[in-house]
């Protein structure tokens, strides 16, 4: 058996004393130079979202309401639903198509003190076999005459993973995330932002033969020794730590339009390295319209314990055949339009918009084969490589009051 060991990688594993030093430094910044911050807009967003690709259809509504209380407090509530109907390649290979629903509720609060903003949040996600709760806390501070904004955030979450086919199956995992964000007005035409996130997932109270960070319904395949292949359950490490660094910038062109660029690098303790770049062009037309064109490329390497086809049963101490842990590259094109509804058409609101955005994903997997083909046509391990195309629609109405 191949034994894979994972080195300590993440900022999330740093000693607690170091976290306190960082927090103290941050509060020194906050208290050293105070100016006034700005509360977010009061608004209502009504969103219909739809995903269609790879045999899965997921759609549903999302409603976000954000309201100020007095001059220094802003609160928001979000209700989000995923209605899933899935016959994805994983499902077709080893299980039956299914339907389910995921409901997410979230609440946030922001308290503004001079030019600092204190943020708290709570999110709950529930589906018939997965419950997740997340608590978050963060502080933002603007200084240098509002040219610079620095933010620090932490979030803690606990998930309970179930399995519909086995009522006794229950796995608990703990999630932690530490974030640092800095945004900067560089020139009168250029904004830039740097974000660093360190995330740690940890299974609780499991034996060596159990996993919590994988989909419990998914299997890996291995050569049977007689020319074909068989399936066995996935087995994942009990921890995952990851770091991601993202840089974003928006430039105001010589005419009224903007170009935004985003670049991100990612690495985790499972051996995955990823990066992506996105370019977006936003063009207003007259006073009523905004048009957006976007192109994004993404690529990643595989997890150390991923294989499309293992040589024999229990070939490694950890086993995965999740295509999201396989090496692949993808590109996404996006088009969108925003229409500003003339004032007075919808009463009670200062401003209203209607928006339609479409993104098309094209994902090419380098080491994930389509095992749905007939074994008589293709030998094990020689099936065609899988690719996935998906369309994502966002249709939403926004109202400012």
């Amino acid at each position, binding site marked *: 058996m191949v034994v894979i060991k994972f080195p300590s990688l993440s900022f999330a594993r740093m000693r607690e004393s*170091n976290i306190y030093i960082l927090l103290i430094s941050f509060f020194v910044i906050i208290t*050293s*130079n105070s100016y006034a911050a700005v509360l977010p807009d009061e608004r209502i967003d009504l969103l219909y979202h739809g995903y269609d690709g790879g045999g899965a259809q997921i759609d549903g509504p*999302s409603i976000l309401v954000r309201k100020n209380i007095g001059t220094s407090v802003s609160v928001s509530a979000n209700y989000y639903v995923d209605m899933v109907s899935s016959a994805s390649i994983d499902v077709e290979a080893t299980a039956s198509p299914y339907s389910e629903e995921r409901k997410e509720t979230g609440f946030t609060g922001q308290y503004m003190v001079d030019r600092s903003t204190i943020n708290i949040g709570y999110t709950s996600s529930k589906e018939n076999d997965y419950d997740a709760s997340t608590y978050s806390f963060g502080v933002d501070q603007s200084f240098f005459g509002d040219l610079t904004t620095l933010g620090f955030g932490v979030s803690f979450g606990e998930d309970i993973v179930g399995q519909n086919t086995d009522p006794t199956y229950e796995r608990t995992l703990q999630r932690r*995330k530490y974030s640092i964000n800095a945004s900067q007005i560089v020139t009168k035409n250029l904004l830039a932002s740097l974000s660093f996130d360190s995330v740690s997932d940890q299974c609780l109270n499991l034996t060596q033969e159990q996993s919590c960070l994988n989909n419990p319904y998914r299997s890996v395949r291995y050569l049977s020794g007689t020319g074909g292949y068989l399936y066995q359950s996935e087995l994942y490490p009990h921890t995952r730590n990851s770091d*991601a660094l993202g840089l974003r910038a928006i430039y*105001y062109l010589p005419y009224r339009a*903007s170009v935004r660029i985003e670049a991100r690098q990612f690495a985790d303790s499972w051996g995955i390295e990823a990066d992506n770049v996105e370019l977006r062009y936003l063009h207003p037309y007259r006073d009523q319209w905004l048009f957006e064109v976007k192109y994004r490329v993404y690529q990643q390497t595989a997890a150390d314990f991923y294989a499309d086809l293992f040589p024999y049963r229990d070939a490694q101490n950890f086993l995965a055949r999740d295509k999201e842990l396989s090496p692949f590259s993808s590109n996404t094109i996006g088009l969108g339009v925003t229409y500003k509804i003339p004032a007075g058409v919808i009463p009670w609101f200062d401003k209203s918009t209607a928006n339609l955005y479409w993104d098309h994903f094209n994902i090419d997997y380098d080491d994930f084969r389509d095992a749905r083909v007939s074994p008589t046509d293709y030998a094990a391990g020689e099936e065609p490589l899988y690719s996935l195309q998906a369309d994502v629609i966002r249709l939403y109405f926004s109202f400012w009051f």
Partner: protein
Amino acid sequence: MILRRLLLIALLFSVAACSPIKPWVKPYERQKIADEIMSFGRDPAADSYLHHVYDAREAARGGDGASGGGCGCN
């Protein structure tokens, strides 16, 4: 190592924040920066959903300026 660098940056910002640095982009020069086309996250519900799609389809997570909760999306 990453922590030490971040700590150093934080301390440098602390010191710099106490110094009399003058804003090089004056408030009256920020009308373009304040334009809605210069926003990183113009529509939070729509942006949050697209980040959710990326997180479900890709192994990478974080570093995108977005906050997120857990979901059984793997």
